């Protein structure tokens, strides 16, 4: 595939804010112009070319290489194209993105996909805290799109999410789906404690184990095989998530809550028996 390639020149340790690294900004630019895009290095603006070697054919599709642990806001607000990251990525990866696709070979920092409204974010390693969630003071987190994590996700995944889909192949930290307004969260490993605290609507689906019981403000509803789940699980299977035939055919225990809010949210727990 032809693409614009950005190779980190050195191990960056001070924070870099690279919200200019999006297919929208780079599309149609010559290599020199790409190298002149501004990025914030610490408290000073620097040309992108000072920190990254630019090569490739100037297309909108981007490939980033090197350890980008301290490079934040890659793909922020992007609406189209692709970004492939070979290595770790820093905070706020793909936050507020509305379209296109980001794939990351390795781990990502906190707030990946925060306020995401569309597109797809695929993480092959682990995700930091607040995946697909809301920034402090904001009422809504993710409002659309898909986030797929092959590894684990840290605390508070999907907090205040309003719409969209998050699937985590491994386990989650504390408070998955806290204050969720709507949307779907699938966890194939261990669902972290206090899932769905303060949730209004939406579905949290546990396909593995539970770190602890559900909160006391959730009530047992029934045991059944939800039809809509088949549809989601088939999509997730197609996207390479670890869906088994048993998940597709199995029964699920349904808990509803949180009764302190609307109480229309649900936690579906795959019944292994």
């Amino acid at each position, binding site marked *: 595939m032809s693409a614009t390639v950005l190779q980190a020149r050195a191990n960056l340790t001070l924070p870099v804010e690279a919200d200019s690294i999006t297919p929208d900004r780079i599309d149609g630019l010559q290599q020199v112009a790409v190298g002149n895009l501004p990025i914030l290095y610490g408290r000073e603006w620097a040309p992108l070319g000072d920190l990254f070697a630019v090569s490739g054919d100037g297309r909108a599709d981007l490939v980033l290489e090197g350890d980008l642990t301290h490079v934040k806001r890659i793909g922020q607000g992007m609406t189209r194209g692709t970004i492939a990251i070979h290595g770790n990525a820093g905070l706020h990866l793909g936050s507020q993105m509305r379209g296109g696709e980001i794939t990351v070979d390795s781990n990502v920092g906190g707030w990946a996909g925060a306020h995401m409204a569309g597109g797809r974010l695929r993480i092959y390693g682990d995700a930091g805290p607040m995946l697909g969630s809301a920034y402090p003071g904001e009422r809504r987190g993710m409002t659309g799109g898909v986030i797929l994590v092959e590894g684990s996700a840290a605390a508070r995944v999907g907090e205040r999410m309003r719409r969209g889909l998050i699937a985590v192949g491994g386990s989650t930290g504390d408070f998955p789906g*806290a204050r969720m307004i709507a949307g779907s969260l699938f966890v194939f490993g261990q669902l972290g404690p206090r899932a769905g605290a303060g949730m209004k609507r939406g579905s949290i689906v546990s396909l593995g184990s539970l770190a602890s019981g559900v909160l006391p403000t959730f*009530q047992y509803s029934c045991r059944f095989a939800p039809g809509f789940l088949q549809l989601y699980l088939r999509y997730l299977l197609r996207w390479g998530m670890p869906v088994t035939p048993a998940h597709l055919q199995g029964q699920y225990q349904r808990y509803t809550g949180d*009764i302190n809010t609307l109480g229309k949210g649900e936690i579906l727990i795959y019944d292994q028996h």
Partner: protein
Amino acid sequence: MTRTVEHVVCPTCGCLCDDLVVEVDGTRVTQARRACPNGRTFFKSYDPTPRLPRVHGREVEWNEAIAEAARMLTQARSPLIYGLSSTATEAQRCAVELADRLGAILDTTSSLCHGPAVLAMQSVGLPGCTLGEIRSNADLVIFWGCNPAVSHPRHFARYSLPPANRRSRVAVVVDVRPTATSDIADLFLQVEPGSDLEILTALRALVHARPLSARAIGGVPLANWEDLAGRMKSCRMGVVFAGVGLTMSQGRDLNLGELFSLVAELNDCTRFAAMPMRGHGNVAGADQVLTWQSGYPFAVNYGRGFPRYGPGEFSAVDVLAHGEADAALIIASDPLAHLPSSSAVHLREIPVVAIDPRESLTTRIAQVVLPTACYGLDAAGTYYRMDGVPIRLRPVISSARPTDEQALQQLLDSVVRVSAGAVPTC
């Protein structure tokens, strides 16, 4: 000759007791009557003898130290300004201006104690009141995850459980282990660590008579929580003091958000308030000043030329743990003693400027140390009590040392000169 000063304010903790009687012999405080042991230590251990600043361990003139500090901070690409909880609002204001000028990250000790309470306040609001109202009217006082008998020893006598009406009020303690505060409580609920959110959500449900299926929550039988919910609804005025046991356990701001929501809902049937049990003397003032100057209470980044808010990203503990600062200005705080080791390690590796009236672990490793006067002892300034009431501190002894505010103003002037291309004057 000994003289007596009355109505002295103790700036040690968020209580800001303003009824102390202090005896001064020359330039030393010999007695601090009515102060608790923490306050007495504060007053009696202070030595106001003028000291020269240090640069790389060498004593130098004041201007030389200021010039070196300005050089270090302006050369940094990602400077951090941290502390501010034990200095006056006048100095805090200067620190904000300096951070703005430097494009620095600015954080206070709030992010390590009650920052989550501020986040919760922004999210769901805080039904509050003053300590005076609690002293006069409260008949149910709940201490949740705090131990004021040790951290704020005069809190009971002055505000929450005054002896004159102790019998008419019920004191409840919710904590993970017995403490000196639980020893004097009428009701002690020992809960499992990390279960605060479950309990608070359950209490909200019980207050609204919603059914709960659990028989025990947080390791305490449901009947006890039903009893507490009943007391909360039927009291004349209740208050919950929230400590770091709530803000720094799992859930952090979610715990506080649940608590503030519970308290707000209780106001449908009675008068109820919540109050974070602020520790350092003016940490509440730091929140106030940063909010009115930048719009945000802590964890503010000026790197883009305007303030941005990032708890968890621009908090000093995270910035240092990720190695994302290359110089630090520490004001009236001792982060080496308080920060987790992962953050403290990085602080030892970067240039540090410390402004502090006292020697500390941080001043020992700092490249530049600016010894200043101490607010409430030999400097005047404004502090905010834990309930947000501003209180003026007067000096009880005289000293030749500059205040934090003067030091920061000089540093700011020097930074402006260096940024404008002038050679720093020594």
